């Protein structure tokens, strides 16, 4: 075996080693180790994408114990895409954090534990994207959840603790429900590996057993973790009261982790129509999320709450794929490609938007959108970040948001389910409404007082890089489509657009 064959394991070991190293070494080298680790992970992620494009999906047997006895890692196209997205957003968040957490006062925004917790969260996210075992999904989800809750509570004030506590209880409810689901599924089928499970569930009579109950519980738990309306109650406070780099990572990456597990369960494990009605129900909830989240975003007076509710809305788009997937064939490939492109575009743009919003808060010394007038003159780069990220949220060309909505609308029309296209269009209009409301304030003629500019240039360019990447992401659509084709989610022989 060459080093390239061990890439899935290395992508988990590298951040884990970095996290452990940061924890045991002196505070003064925290930043350096985190930055080096981020660079190493990014390199490995690029190698993994190249390897998957070149040689197809990788199946890695940890310790040489294959399924069903051991736990396998599966690096297929979508997993490689999410690993790369996490690496890009993670590197930008790391660069931003080195400017955000002041060197002179390491405990100003918490207890100096950001770096180690952040790398632990990165480890568990990579593991979650790579796992091919439904029980391992549970372990990874909890590792992500524990580090995410700890990161939310870093500041240690009443607001952060309350938000973190609510997040933790929602997380616990989802964890226990998911585990009971796994228990019932195992009792009915006797398997945990996703590929083995898929074959087992195709046997006649599988739907009548306890497997359906177990899978329903697992889907419900993942919906709660992904914060799909009406299970979104914990998200806005948790994402808004965390330190800014944490907010960006939570909104851009963490919700994608549980979503990816759900995608694998719904499309990769269950045969079409295994849980009748669930696919349509998820898409209906997604449509409600698009409208409800957008309306809430319009009503928020504080900038981070506004960005968080925009996440509630954007999550909704990820659920339209399920009823379209039932059609199979080209429509499935188109819908899945659109969904993954949306997840990527949203990840980049939302991280940029959160980092930009956090920098604006630092600049003005408060969070009220209405008192940020004239930012276009005092903070031109940050205004550009918000505007460019807004272009992706609205889905205007040439942004990734445009490409993904185009593909999803085409898939809806081809599947003869045109009503989802209406929802997607309405979502774009609502996003335009909530983004223009903020941009109009930033570009107002009258100017509000700003504090002194903080020296770190990283607070401006890190979000700008992300927003610009999201803006031109439609150019990466062919790469996304190639990666989607290398996946167990798409049956072989399907032609891609």
């Amino acid at each position: 075996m060459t080093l390239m064959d061990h890439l899935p394991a290395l992508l988990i070991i590298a951040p884990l080693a970095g996290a452990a190293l940061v924890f045991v070494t002196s505070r003064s080298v925290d930043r350096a180790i985190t930055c080096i680790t981020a660079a190493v992970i990014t390199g490995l992620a690029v190698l993994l994408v190249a390897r998957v494009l070149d040689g197809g999906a990788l199946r890695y047997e940890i310790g040489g114990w294959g399924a069903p006895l051991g736990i396998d890692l599966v690096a297929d196209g979508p997993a490689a895409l999410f690993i790369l997205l996490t690496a890009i957003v993670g590197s930008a968040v790391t660069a931003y954090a080195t400017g955000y957490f002041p060197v002179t006062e390491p405990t100003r925004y918490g207890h100096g534990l950001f770096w180690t917790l952040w790398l632990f969260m990165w480890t568990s996210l990579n593991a979650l994207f790579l796992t091919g075992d439904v029980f391992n999904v549970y372990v990874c989800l909890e590792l992500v959840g524990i580090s995410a809750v700890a990161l939310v509570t870093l500041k240690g004030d009443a607001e952060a603790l309350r938000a973190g506590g609510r997040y933790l209880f929602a997380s616990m409810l989802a964890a226990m429900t998911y585990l009971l689901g796994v228990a019932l599924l195992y009792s009915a089928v006797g398997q945990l590996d996703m590929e083995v499970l898929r074959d087992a569930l195709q046997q006649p009579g599988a739907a009548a057993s306890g497997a359906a109950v177990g899978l329903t519980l697992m889907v419900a738990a993942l919906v709660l973790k992904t914060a799909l309306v009406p299970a979104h109650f914990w998200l806005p406070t948790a994402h808004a009261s965390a330190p800014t780099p944490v907010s960006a990572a939570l909104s851009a990456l963490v919700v994608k982790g549980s979503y990816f597990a759900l995608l694998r369960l719904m499309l990769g494990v269950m045969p079409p129509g295994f849980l009748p009605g669930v696919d349509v129900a998820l898409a209906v909830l997604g449509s409600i999320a698009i409208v409800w989240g957008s309306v809430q975003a319009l009503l928020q007076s504080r900038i981070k709450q506004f960005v968080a509710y925009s996440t509630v809305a954007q999550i909704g788009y990820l659920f339209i794929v399920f009823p379209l997937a039932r059609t199979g064939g080209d429509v499935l490939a188109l819908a899945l490609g659109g969904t993954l492109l949306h997840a990527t575009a949203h990840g980049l743009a939302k991280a940029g938007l959160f980092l930009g919003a956090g920098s604006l808060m630092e600049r003005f010394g408060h969070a009220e959108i209405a008192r940020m007038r004239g930012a276009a003159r005092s903070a031109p780069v940050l205004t550009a970040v918000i505007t460019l990220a807004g272009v992706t949220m609205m889905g205007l060309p040439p942004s990734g948001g445009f490409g993904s909505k185009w593909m999803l609308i085409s898939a809806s029309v081809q599947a003869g389910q045109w009503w989802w296209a209406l929802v997607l269009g309405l979502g774009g209009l609502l996003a335009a409404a909530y983004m223009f409301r903020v941009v109009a304030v930033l570009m107002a003629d009258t100017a509000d007082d700003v504090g002194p500019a903080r020296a770190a240039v990283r607070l401006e360019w890190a979000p700008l890089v992300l927003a610009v990447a999201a803006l031109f992401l439609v150019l990466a659509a062919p790469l996304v489509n190639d990666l989607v084709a290398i996946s167990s989610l798409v049956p072989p022989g399907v032609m891609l657009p």
Partner: protein
Amino acid sequence: MSTYLIYALGGALVFAIGTYALLARRHVMHKVIGANLMGSGTFLVLIGMGNRTPDGVTDPVPQAMVLTGIVVTVALTALGLAIAKRYYSVTGLDNLDDEPSAGDRP
């Protein structure tokens, strides 16, 4: 009534009680204990499953899952208790539902 069914139904009952406590109780300690009950109920379901193999040899996989589940639950519980303790010392509140008054914030 098979042995497994007793475990499964008992586990489901304990799980339901835990879910009720986690959702309906306001006190943070009640919520933490509720979550632990949900875990215990699931572990009962899993443990009972072990002797259902046709050849009568105990299936070790559910036990491995219970062991891992216990570790995860302990970590979640510790984090929950740490947050509850800190929240109480910052605000004097024992639940997350009441708005902390402005004077309580540090």
